[in-house]
């Protein structure tokens, strides 16, 4: 009885948060309401977090509060200190952390299910774990490269080498095969490690050939990816608010990326294929 009421409260809170996220994004798109929109969305996030703390399995409050406190302090400090001109790379950095978090969540849940003798991992869970790990990993390393390029920590030019596209294609195929094996035989960690490692590598390899001038578009696209990754972790954990907020970011991020491309007079495909510095011919 008590447990049921708690579940209903949590679900209703998730519903309120989802609506506030939608209203927030809508308001962010208009000049005079943008700042309030951001606050709406922050309130939505707060509600979602508080509701999740009520979940029955959540027991270790001290560790969770301490971790959130440290994360908030570091996040606020960095966000306040950064110069206005460095904003896009800051967004890239934070976005990468979001992708990393999705990878870790999916891996954590995978580990629990793969090593619990009493549970056979359902195919759906296997598929969604693989998807969130791959997309999250690409988001993480891709965003780190984008951040490095904008911050001048690595060469901002388009870095291309011969055989780049075939190499990516081969890695992608290996990752695909490992993913299928993982879904069929989820208790075998080696496939998981392979999928994770190649995902991380592909994030680097796909962003490295893109020039620094195109980085804002790339960050916008990776932002969309991090939404999709969060959305799939929602399927892994059977959690609606993750799916809704993730899908919102995933879909609106893709549209925004397209709009940004148009504003810069470029096509999304050519940005993705990279090598813009070389007059459009790549590899």
């Amino acid at each position, binding site marked *: 009885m008590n447990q049921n009421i708690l579940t209903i409260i949590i679900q209703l809170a998730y519903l309120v948060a989802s609506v506030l996220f939608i209203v927030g*994004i*809508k308001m962010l*798109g208009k000049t005079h309401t943008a700042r309030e929109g951001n*606050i709406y969305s922050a309130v939505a996030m707060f509600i979602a977090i508080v509701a999740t703390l009520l979940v029955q399995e959540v027991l270790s409050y001290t560790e969770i509060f301490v971790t959130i406190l440290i994360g908030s302090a570091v996040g606020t400090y960095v966000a306040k200190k950064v110069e206005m001109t460095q904003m896009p790379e800051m967004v890239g950095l934070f976005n990468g952390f979001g992708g990393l*978090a999705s990878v870790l969540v999916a891996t954590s849940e995978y580990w*629990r299910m793969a090593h619990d003798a009493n549970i056979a991992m359902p195919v759906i869970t296997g598929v969604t774990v693989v998807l969130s790990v791959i997309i999250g990993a690409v988001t993480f390393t891709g965003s780190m490269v984008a951040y490095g390029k904008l911050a001048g920590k690595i060469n901002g030019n388009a870095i291309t080498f011969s055989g780049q596209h075939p190499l990516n294609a081969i890695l992608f195929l290996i990752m695909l095969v490992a993913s299928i094996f993982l879904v069929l035989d989820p208790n075998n960690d080696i496939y998981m490690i392979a999928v994770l490692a190649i995902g991380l590598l592909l994030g680097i390899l796909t962003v490295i050939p893109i020039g620094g001038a195109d980085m804002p578009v790339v960050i916008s696209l990776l932002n969309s990816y991090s939404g999709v990754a969060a959305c799939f972790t929602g399927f892994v954990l*059977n959690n609606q608010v993750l799916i809704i907020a993730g899908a919102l970011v995933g879909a*609106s991020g893709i549209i925004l990326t397209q709009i940004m491309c148009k504003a810069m007079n470029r096509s999304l495909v050519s940005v993705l294929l990279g090598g813009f510095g070389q007059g459009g011919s790549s590899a």
Partner: protein
Amino acid sequence: MSIENLIVLLYVLVLASYVGFELIAKVPPTLHTPLMSGSNAISGITIVGAIICAGPLPGEFPLSKILGMVALFFATLNVVGGYVVTDRMLQMFKKKK
């Protein structure tokens, strides 16, 4: 997860994606970066997943718990940093106007 449950979640996914597509239209170029930053903060929603993974006592699967705690740290950075950065951008925006 049961099939019925999966279907419901797929409904949620499709409808939320549709709303996401529809939300972004006629956004003035000056708002592109703040909007990207704001939705980046929202993608930090994975913090909810991190709390669920970090929540249980270590028990039989300490690695799951550790991964959850690390995820929680990075997700918090994403959420808090994302919102503060977005707010700073929009604050600038208002002063200019």
